[in-house]
């Protein structure tokens, strides 16, 4: 008997769990084998080949973070009625139907671990470096001690610079409070030693939470295993040196395993960090302003002139 019947996360006996009166300082160790400590990088590895589209992540996220339902109604896009990530939706499961169009040619055999109905649970990528954070003029967006990116609504002034800065369309200004909102990677739960709500709720471990470096290693092994099983299209998106971690984005702390081109799932093929392009623009702008100011000074029409008084 191989003993592998137990869930890989199962522990022989949970110390201090008898009676469950004892507080569990590091619950994440029990639920996903990860100890949560400041100073390390934490993130998600979302393996789309394991996603069954149950949307438990969406519900767990909204319940934990007390996010309202948007009540958008039936979209007609397969089973996706959430539509997109936004101020009130921090996990979103995309559904892509890929069955060929005639009865004769419709697939009955699936390549191993790839479906003819793709499902992917999308989330904030907690980029490194993070364009939203770089665009934020108030410091409302900051990098936490867990290397995640969080908005502080009490500081946010609603300028929305972060919205176009995000290459993935994640951040949104809430119509409720006029502030930016997005996934916090359950910052409050991490502080309490708990696995983020979506990862804990995921029944098939499509969403895996952990230390980013360990997740990247695990994901690499997963790609190899899939290749060995005949699924040769699997690749990582957002891990260092892979598609998604491009144009100034060194890595996405929430990265993905995909089996189709990124655009199929609604992800950009080559996301770009705006800052490097913004810098020359800003410098040029500043130079122009400085030039105009200098010219104004010379012509005596600038604010410095006090002739009118």
């Amino acid at each position, binding site marked *: *008997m*191989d*003993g*592998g*019947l*137990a*869930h*890989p996360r*199962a*522990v*022989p*006996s949970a110390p201090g769990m008898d009676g469950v009166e004892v507080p569990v300082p590091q619950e994440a160790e029990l639920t996903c084998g990860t100890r949560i400590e400041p100073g390390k990088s934490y993130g998600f590895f979302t393996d789309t080949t*394991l996603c*069954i*589209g*149950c*949307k*438990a992540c*969406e*519900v767990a996220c*909204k*319940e934990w973070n007390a*996010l*309202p*339902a*948007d*009540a*958008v*109604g*039936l979209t*007609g*896009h*397969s*089973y996706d*009625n*959430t539509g997109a990530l936004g101020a009130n939706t921090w996990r979103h499961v995309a559904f892509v*139907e890929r*069955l*060929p*169009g005639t*009865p004769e040619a*419709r*697939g*009955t*055999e*699936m390549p*191993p*671990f790839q*479906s*003819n*109905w*793709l*499902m992917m649970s999308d989330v904030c990528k907690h980029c490194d470096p993070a364009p939203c954070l770089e665009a934020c003029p108030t410091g409302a967006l900051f990098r936490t001690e867990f290397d995640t990116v969080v908005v502080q609504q009490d500081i946010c002034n609603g300028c929305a610079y972060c919205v176009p800065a995000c290459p993935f369309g994640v951040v949104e200004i809430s119509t409720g409070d006029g502030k930016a909102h997005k996934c916090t990677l359950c910052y409050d739960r991490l502080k309490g030693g708990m696995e983020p709500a979506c990862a804990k709720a995921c*029944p*098939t*471990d499509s969403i895996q939470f952990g230390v980013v470096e360990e997740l990247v290693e695990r994901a690499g092994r997963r790609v190899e295993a899939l290749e060995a*099983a005949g699924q040769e299209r699997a690749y990582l998106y957002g891990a260092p040196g892979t598609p998604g971690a491009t144009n100034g984005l060194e890595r996405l702390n929430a990265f993905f395993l995909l089996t189709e081109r990124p655009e199929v799932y609604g992800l950009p093929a080559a996301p770009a960090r705006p800052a490097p392009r913004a810098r020359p623009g800003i410098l040029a702008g500043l130079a122009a302003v400085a030039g105009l100011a200098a010219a104004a000074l010379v012509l005596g029409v600038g604010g410095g002139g006090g002739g009118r008084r």
Partner: protein
Amino acid sequence: MPQWDLARSDVVLVMGSNMAENHPIAFRFAMQAKARGATLIHADPRFTRTSAMCDLYAPIRAGTDIAFLGGIIRHLLENDLWWRDWAIPYTNIATVIEEGYHGPETGDGLFSGWNAEERRYSSETWQYEGQTVPSPLAEAWMETGGDFAERVSSLRERPPARDETLQHPNCVYQIMRRHYARYTPEMVERITGCPRGVFLKVCDALARNSGPERTGAICYAVGWNHHTTGAQVIRAGAIVQSLLGNVGRPGAGLLALRGHTSIQGSTDIATLYDLMPGYLPQPHALRPHKTLADYLEVETAPTGWWANFPKYAVSLLRAWYGGEASEANGWGYDWMPRTVGDHSQLPSTVAMRDGVIKGLFVMGQNPVVGGSNSRLVQQGLARLEWMVVRDIAETDTATFWRDGTLVRDGEMRPEEIGTEVFLMPASLSGEKAGSFTNTHRLVQWHDKVVEAPGDSRSEHWFVYHLGRRLKAMHADGGRPEDAAIRNLRWDYPEVDDQGEPDAEAILREINGYRVADGALVSSFQDLKDDGSTACGTWIYTGVFPEEGKNLSRSRVPDGPNGPGTHLGWGFAWPANRRTLGNRASADPAGKPWSERKALIRWDEGAGEWTGPDVPDFQKEKRPDYVPDWSSRPKGMDAHSGAEPFIMLADGRAAVFAPSGLKDGPLPAHYEPIESPAANPLHPGNPASPAAKRWEQRSNPVGDAPDPAFPHALTTFRLTEHHSGGTPTRIVPTTAELQPEMFAEIPTELGRELGVRDLDWVVVSTPRGSIEARALVTDRLRPFAAEGSARPVHQIGLPWHFGWAGYATGDVANLLTAVVGDPNTGMHENKALACGLRPGRLFRANPPRTEGPN
């Protein structure tokens, strides 16, 4: 089988279930099997989220499961791919059947024994040669010529006639070969629409993973049950598994995926009208059940474990009745109500409609959404004098008189409906203590963690206090029913100010105790038929073996390097066994068929069966034990040490069922009652002749293929909603995920009708029409079908929706019919015929648009 045991399967066939969507937690174990290299197969009318995760998807038209499974049986038999070494000793495949038997292949769809006038079968010709075999189900008694008890006692005189060379023309093997001869891959394709190449791949995957070293599992759910042939579909799956040796072994089995958290528990503790707790038959007024002695005589099987039936029945009476109960009055047997016929949900609905039933309790159910022919259901509710709805929110059923279909369509006005509705708030599972019994018979305790809001109360509280009030009402009456209520044992300690009864006291009663001193019993082997023990449900005995030891509370997993049976996690009835029939994991000599698939084995030194599971066998019965027929052995003494299935009268898996089924000893393909296709196997009897019918003005049923209803219709569930929808349609975060009723239609039909996504369509059956938005998808497909010149399009409707809550829409069950499986009374909402047109319906009173108050 335990769900977690799926991780050890080498092939998993999911059929009649959308497992990934509706059982996502169990499906994780199928995914683990896949990660270890197992082949996953999904056979279904719709390409679902389950199909998406499988290696192979076999599309079949709804209602053709037996044709598909029968084709597999034929393929295994004709190509000699079944596992002879396992199946010959462990099943009745070699047993010889009565000479008078003939199958539907020679009777135009009818088995021998058909009574055309009464439209039912006599099973006399289905019996073993010269022996009458009682059913292993709750009801042993059946109508036979002569004295039943005397007839079945022949099982104590000799073993059933067998021909292990399989040459006897009336041995089960030869009967099955004749029966399934016509279920060729070509015929499977003609009937089911599944391409024969795909069908053969499924056969191959199952056959490849059979034998000493490998096992396969079949997972099914209500996609198999909800047919007029539902019990026979499951039988067909069981036959496949019996031929492949996939019973009682690691990673093997036929896993019934059950819906609600404790639907298994509710059948064990008997919500069904014809069962008492522990699968004991309810006394019946029209059967030889007059006295306790009569009842015990005709319901006790002479051989096998059910010979212990009197101990369980008497102990149940002892648990229920105190007061004046005594041996002289059969421990209160006469106080127990008798059934007089079919009191299941479908005929009860008709009885309400006819004004026979005056009052109704609805607890944790939403029948106007979930009941077949919802208009008939609502007409029934409208004729009640009173109705009590206990639920966590105001359900569609509670508001049928205000917002329901009858009002909307102008059939009745609210002021014309006299039903007095009482809405009682119910608590949720975290707000009360109790147990869940899951699909693997695993009983798991849960504690109360928060107070329920407002006046919400538990079911325990409600039933307990209702009982107390009834007892007070009947305390002095002189009528028989007064005595029945007066003498009920009804003393549960109250644990809080609200008068909540102690849930563990109920579990202790279920477990059983000695009447004299109240000491708990630890095994059902300690139960007696002399009145000295009381037991609420014999199969649960051992869950509370001693004071302070509630095993359903236990939470000790085996850990990654343990055996994986997790005997310390909860309590699995009976006797904490995890895999039923596990004697079959060893060969007749008691040695595991292989080390890879070992479970229990005979330990010659210790003289007992041993292994990581609790043996489902007499612990000290030697594998070479042979009954001494000269002594007329009784009970287990009549089973040899190599007959693994103790609950059956002859100890062998019944690939041929001589009794217990009302529609034939072998599964045969019948079309649904309403089908767009003809039946090429027996055109004279296209649908099940024995199906239950309740003809009604409000329940027209179309028997022949009708050009007005050319499409195949199936109803289904979504992962985002729970059954009747009450727990999810009222919660914004789940309601928004599937916010509205829709109809799934194949791309080809959408193109033909000019229907695009989100367009309105009207779906119709002889019962009526509903409107829904279209979801045009490649996941559904047209099928070529017998007797239909055009392809038959498969339509799918989710049935969760109604008018209450945030996620609303037309009730799919307005379309379904009140027809039933002859064995179970189960409806046929998974397969019927429908028409579909673009457009909307006229409504006398359009639905209210605002949300709940």
